[in-house]
């Protein structure tokens, strides 16, 4: 029986297995690489009209790469990202609390309307 692979060291510190980082970076390598190559070809073949759109693809790929690199950096995400993550967590907690309260209120309402509640027992 093969032992399950336990993430160690850096991958544990990042809270994510390094395989996930690998799997995220592999398609990004293709997005960035092909868009750079197509931009070079477009410029060589005087098809400058393709360049702005290819720049958008390349820019989006690099933006995603920076996000992955910053999120899984050994020192943790940068402060700006930490603040944004904390803010998202706060919003999510608020939503959860609100949903719990609504659930409690609805359940309570249903129980109050239920005839069984008014049944008098001796």
């Amino acid at each position: 029986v093969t032992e399950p692979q336990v993430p160690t060291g850096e991958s544990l510190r990042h809270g994510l297995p390094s395989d996930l980082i690998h799997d995220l970076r592999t398609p990004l390598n293709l997005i960035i690489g092909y868009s750079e190559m197509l931009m070079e070809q477009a410029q060589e073949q005087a098809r400058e009209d393709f360049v702005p759109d290819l720049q958008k693809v390349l820019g989006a790929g690099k933006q995603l790469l920076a996000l992955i690199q910053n999120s899984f950096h050994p020192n943790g995400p940068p402060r700006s990202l930490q603040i944004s993550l904390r803010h998202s967590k706060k919003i999510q907690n608020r939503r959860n609390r609100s949903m719990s309260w609504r659930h409690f209120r609805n359940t309570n309402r249903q129980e109050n309307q239920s005839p069984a509640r008014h049944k008098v027992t001796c």
Partner: protein
Amino acid sequence: MPKILLVEDNEMNRDMLSRRLQRKGYEVVLALDGQTGVEMTQNQGPDLVLMDMSLPVLDGWEATRRLKSEASTRHIPVIALTAHAMSSDREKALEAGCDDYDTKPVELPRLLAKIEALLSGGKKVSAHEPMS
């Protein structure tokens, strides 16, 4: 024209990087796994090997160890390529005998600079030097 052996199992990565290197004037030969990479290095004597590390049959670390343990292939520079970006991955690659290390996504000017440095007899990167 310098000959580069690209050992890469991912078809699209292989296609993209080989085309980009050919456009820069290199002759590129391809191997799909570590075992074939070792055999092609022995048979074809490329000027440099670009070695992906996560490979089937024989992984890039073991393939590099074999190349560096053999007198006929020891002198051929090997650049490790990996989408793992941890500092431990870099050290692991250099300890296996790789002459340099680069991460994917490949920044072509950076990779070309490393290729040129090694082809012109540049120094081998130490496992303890800071990551570029």
